[in-house]
């Protein structure tokens, strides 16, 4: 296995780009990443493209038409919300295996104002079970996961709301974030309920976006880095749902995250306390709270206490163990296929003191974790070190 490094990264501001196509959005991020790496398309030997909603439409090859058709192998990846991070992992594996020295990973999505995700449809609407046999909508699924934590540990609505306040505060410092407005606890609690216990501001938005990374082997790094320090991918883990008791009725987002986290810490040889920052999959505020425990940032049942003690908050704001200093999915946005690569960009920017993290830079960042979970389910964890 060769060591793998992230040489360049690129990301467009998450938002809404109805005037652009998916390959254009992905192409823009790819060019930014290649420029950041000091390379061009002719240097790229392998390309993994993550996109969900056009998964059958050869998005990767259409991006090549935008940025240069060199005939290299292209794979298109779809893995629910973990689509982008799975594409990153494909690029990682292409290099780790020794087959290639330079690989490009792009995550891209154009969702528009799509509205609610999940639930059932198709066929005779009379047989649609949505709303009749409970709800399969994502807000309900993650609502139930939060309510489970309330039942087990007495967690309060305010705990979830504080996460949203924190992430929106973080987003005010991130020019790549879809939303950059600070909110008070009252704003969050008084916003309209989407699915109890998640109010509007505890749910991530839909949107468009793209992010890209250029990965290189150790050999290429020495040749190309020119003295620049570049983060190593110290762990790359992908898990799926193991069988658990209620999983088929109530998607279990915890078990596969925990097993991925254990494997990732072991692979990287680091402990949760060593993390300078964590970008985790806060599709809903309830999700972020349970992932504090699933990623072992605090003990089982202690997420409420963790929040009360300033856990997850940027050190500039007096917090500790910072989580989602980018603003997270809640504010930065969640264009599904782009999310996993964007999380990794954020971690890289802090580890390399990149100007793109300027206002929110975690001082002296050495180790960062990026976590994504896609319902169905797929969980990726990447740990990067410098």
């Amino acid at each position: 296995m060769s060591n793998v490094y992230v040489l360049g990264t690129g990301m467009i501001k998450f938002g809404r780009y109805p005037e652009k196509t998916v390959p254009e959005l992905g192409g823009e991020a790819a060019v930014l990443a290649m420029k950041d790496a000091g390379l061009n398309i002719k240097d790229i030997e392998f390309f993994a493209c993550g996109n969900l909603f056009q998964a059958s439409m050869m998005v990767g090859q259409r991006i090549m038409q935008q940025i240069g058709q060199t005939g290299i192998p292209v794979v298109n990846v779809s893995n629910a919300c973990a689509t982008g991070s799975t594409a990153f992992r494909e690029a990682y594996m292409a290099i780790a295996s020794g087959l290639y020295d330079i690989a490009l990973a792009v995550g891209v999505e154009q969702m528009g104002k799509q509205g609610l995700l999940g639930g059932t449809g198709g066929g005779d609407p009379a047989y649609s079970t949505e709303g009749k046999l409970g709800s399969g909508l994502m807000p309900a699924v993650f609502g139930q996961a939060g309510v489970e934590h309330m039942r087990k540990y007495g967690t309060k609505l305010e705990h979830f709301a504080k996460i949203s306040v924190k992430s929106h505060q973080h987003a005010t410092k991130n020019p790549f974030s879809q939303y950059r407005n600070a909110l008070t606890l009252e704003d969050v609690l008084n916003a309209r309920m989407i699915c109890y216990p998640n109010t509007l501001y505890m749910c991530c938005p839909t949107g468009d976006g793209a992010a890209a990374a250029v990965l290189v082997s150790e050999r290429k790094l020495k040749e190309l880095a020119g003295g620049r320090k570049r983060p190593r991918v110290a762990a790359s883990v992908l898990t799926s749902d193991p069988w658990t008791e209620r999983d088929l009725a109530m998607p279990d987002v915890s078990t596969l995250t925990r097993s991925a986290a254990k494997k990732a810490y072991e692979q990287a040889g680091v402990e949760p306390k060593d993390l300078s920052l964590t970008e985790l999959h806060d599709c809903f505020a309830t999700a972020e709270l349970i992932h504090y425990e699933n990623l072992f940032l605090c003990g089982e049942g202690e997420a409420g206490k963790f929040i009360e003690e300033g856990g997850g908050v940027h050190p500039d704001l007096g917090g500790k163990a910072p989580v989602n200093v980018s603003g997270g999915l809640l504010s930065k946005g969640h264009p599904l296929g782009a999310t996993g690569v964007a999380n990794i960009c954020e971690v890289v920017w802090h580890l390399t003191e990149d100007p793109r993290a300027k206002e929110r830079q975690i001082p002296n960042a050495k180790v960062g974790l990026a976590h994504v979970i896609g319902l169905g389910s797929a969980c990726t964890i990447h740990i990067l070190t410098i």
Partner: protein
Amino acid sequence: MGNNSAATAHACVRATSIAPRYTDTEETFVDMAQETQTTDQGPRPIVPFLRLHPKPHLVGKKCRCGAIFVDSRAVACAKCGADGQFTETRLSNHGKVYVFSVVHQSFPGIKTPYISAIVDLPEGATVRANLVDVSPEEAEKDPNKVFGMPVEFTTSVAGKDREGHDVIVFSYRPAKA
């Protein structure tokens, strides 16, 4: 299965034409397709694991390892991996609420708010359904009253399908003491 044969016999007498809704390639549910088509205009269950005869109830697929699957078309057991080891098992009409969510925003045409509940059944199976006869507002105010609540199975007509059959849906309500 005794109940099925009775229902099938009943169906044969009453049915004027059989138009199976479930494809007969899905072996597990072939008997159900026959069972539920009592007449051309008879009610239909919204999902194959809801059986209407002789009285409405749910069925699960039980693996010899003990795991029970509701709404599963699995080839092999998701818990132990054994294939072809399933038997159909009738599920209890009583259970307990594990957790819930209150849905306030949904697709057009779906009335909100309503409680989407995860209900544990005594056989070890878990199902998701609406919880009725409980105020969503009260549930949000005091979720502890809903956790562990004993509930019973009930059915209602959710609407009509394109062919004019009543579509039957199940839900849970607080169990009568």
